């Protein structure tokens, strides 16, 4: 159960980051240590690595990058250490439209992320961590580079072993800048990009935990996931499990903890908020974001990054937790960064914009995605222009439904994102689309003799 009626607990991830944008500044190493920073790493080093993995597993920390896969479980997939290199990749390729939560942590509390990296690296005995940041995050890359240098200068990382040699286990952190390709946020494409190749997702299995970066066991985690490891170890599993909600489906995984929710679109106070999972979208918008802009009515919201699909007008009360996909006909919670639209929004334009994104970012490896994304964009552009027919609408759904992992036609889930976005928008706002298309008359030929 949530600890407060408005789902706003004492901040856990953002305790050093004020909500007021104008009061934010980067927390330096000294400031971080002065406010209890790196104490949790010290605690972690006193534990057995396997103990930490069990602890994170027990906290059911579900991945914050979109898929919601439990981090502890992922860590436990690693084979036993064989003395060879093992890698940690941190996914900060935050490029999905609507998503801007990791930027907050990297910008203002980079050492929290670094502490999480150090703990994860120790827990899974991974010697090198590649911090994979998207190319467009120029400022953030500089901030994080400086934070890494500070951490090295203070002996957190480096040859002498973690935390000035408190542990013999040494960890190195490498900042790796991507170069403008959304697909590199897919974990195996990310590995290809670190290896210097084009970001083409790999066929799984083998899974990265067994054979990942440079052919070695690798764990890939989101920035926020690793940051959340710190409070779990600091305050304990029970404190973490008090936050968030249980699943309402029997036997399903719960949604524990707080989540950074970046709200954008037609609301009065778009921003990143740290709230408990399970908060209804309506509470999020009305209570925390100051309501809809210009007193307009709510029309729709993208659940969490455009690939997740759309929540319709009657789904304003949807709780933001990992059950959302099964209950509200969207792909999932994604990054929990909703983009909210008011009553004046043209949903055809929204669908077209999203399709343009997926067409531009399809890596071109699988035919259904490469060709399908182009077709969806063409059809939607035609409908938006007013030249579409009812047949185009059917074709749109047919093409969309035939691409992605779910029908089993592609290597990665990018096409699913395109599919779900287009399909849910058309299905939930079908009358709006129907008003925009012309009826298509099918000529019926009748024989001349019969006509007479």
């Amino acid at each position, binding site marked *: 159960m949530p600890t407060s009626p408005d789902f706003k607990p004492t901040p856990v991830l953002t305790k050093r980051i004020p909500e007021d944008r104008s009061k934010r500044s980067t927390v330096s190493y000294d400031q971080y240590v002065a406010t209890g920073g790196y104490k949790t790493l010290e605690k972690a080093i006193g534990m057995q690595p396997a103990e930490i993995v069990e602890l994170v597993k027990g906290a059911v920390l579900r991945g914050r990058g979109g898929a919601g896969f439990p981090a502890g479980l992922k860590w436990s997939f690693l084979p036993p250490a064989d003395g060879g*290199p093992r890698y940690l990749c941190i996914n900060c390729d935050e490029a*999905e439209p609507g*998503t801007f939560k990791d930027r907050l942590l990297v910008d203002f509390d980079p050492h929290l992320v670094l502490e999480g990296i150090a703990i994860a690296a120790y827990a899974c005995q991974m010697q090198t961590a590649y911090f994979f940041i998207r190319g467009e*995050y120029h400022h953030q890359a500089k901030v994080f580079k400086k934070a890494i240098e500070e951490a090295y200068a203070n002996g957190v990382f480096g040859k002498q072993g973690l935390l000035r040699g408190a542990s013999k286990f040494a960890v190195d952190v490498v900042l790796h800048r991507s*170069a403008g390709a959304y697909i590199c946020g897919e974990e195996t494409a990310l590995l290809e990009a*670190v*290896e210097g190749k084009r970001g083409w997702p790999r066929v799984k299995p083998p899974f990265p935990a067994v054979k990942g970066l440079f052919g070695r066991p690798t764990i890939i985690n989101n920035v926020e996931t690793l940051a959340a490891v710190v409070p779990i170890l600091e305050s304990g599993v029970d404190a973490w499990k008090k936050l968030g909600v249980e699943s309402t489906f029997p036997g399903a995984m719960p949604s524990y903890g707080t989540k950074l929710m970046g709200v954008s679109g*037609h609301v009065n106070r778009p921003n990143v908020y740290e709230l408990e999972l399970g908060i209804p979208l309506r509470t999020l918008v009305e209570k925390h974001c100051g309501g809809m802009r210009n007193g307009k009515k709510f029309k729709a919201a993208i659940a969490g990054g455009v690939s997740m699909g759309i929540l319709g007008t009657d789904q304003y009360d949807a709780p933001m937790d990992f059950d959302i996909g099964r209950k509200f006909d969207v792909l999932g919670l994604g990054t929990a960064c909703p983009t909210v639209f008011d009553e004046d929004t043209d949903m055809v334009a929204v669908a077209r914009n999203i399709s343009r994104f997926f067409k531009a970012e399809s890596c071109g490896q699988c035919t259904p995605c490469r060709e399908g994304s182009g077709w969806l964009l063409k059809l939607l552009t035609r409908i938006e222009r007013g030249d579409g027919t009812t047949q185009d609408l059917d074709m749109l759904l047919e093409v969309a439904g035939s691409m992605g992992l779910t029908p089993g036609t592609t290597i990665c889930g990018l096409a699913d994102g395109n599919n779900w976005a287009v399909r849910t928008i058309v299905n939930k706002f079908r009358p709006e689309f129907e008003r925009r298309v012309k009826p298509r008359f099918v000529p019926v030929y009748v024989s001349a003799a019969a006509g007479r």
Partner: protein
Amino acid sequence: MAWPTKPSATMQVPRRAEPYVTDAMKAAWTKDVLPKYATKLGCLMPILHDVQHAYRHVPYQAQLEIAQFLGIAPSDVLDTVSFYDEFTVEQRGVVTIGVCHSIACEQCGCGSTKLIERVREKLGLLPGETTDDGQVTLITMDCLGSCDTAPVALFNETLHENLTPEAFDRLVEQAAHAKAGGHH
């Protein structure tokens, strides 16, 4: 992302006498980049970033020089260069204006469509084009990760948020007169 037709084996690579990859660059890469990656190919992306930053493009000659430095096939370098949007074979302008045209930026405030239109009116540029004097390049970009302050645009490496048409006009004006090497 693009899938360009690869230049044929008989293509003449335009060359200049002075190499793009300088000794200073090689020394810096040997010290800072090579030890960080398990393979030579792995070092490619940081190196390409440096070259793109220095020359505002990665010409074919530079690609050959990088391949030689790393001891990898030139086609591997071309493969990577052609995949990532940030690496270009054509030289970008002194200032690259990257207008975000993803969902929040298109829908909020004055909207990205209007910003792109302003550049066309002022400088006669369509997305993907560079002014004749090589001063300004306009590109559209997908989500810059700042949807709460939409619409946004990158001017080289600086993100400008909550743009209004007037503020954007002033930035475009400055870009048209910015000097090479200075950060906008």
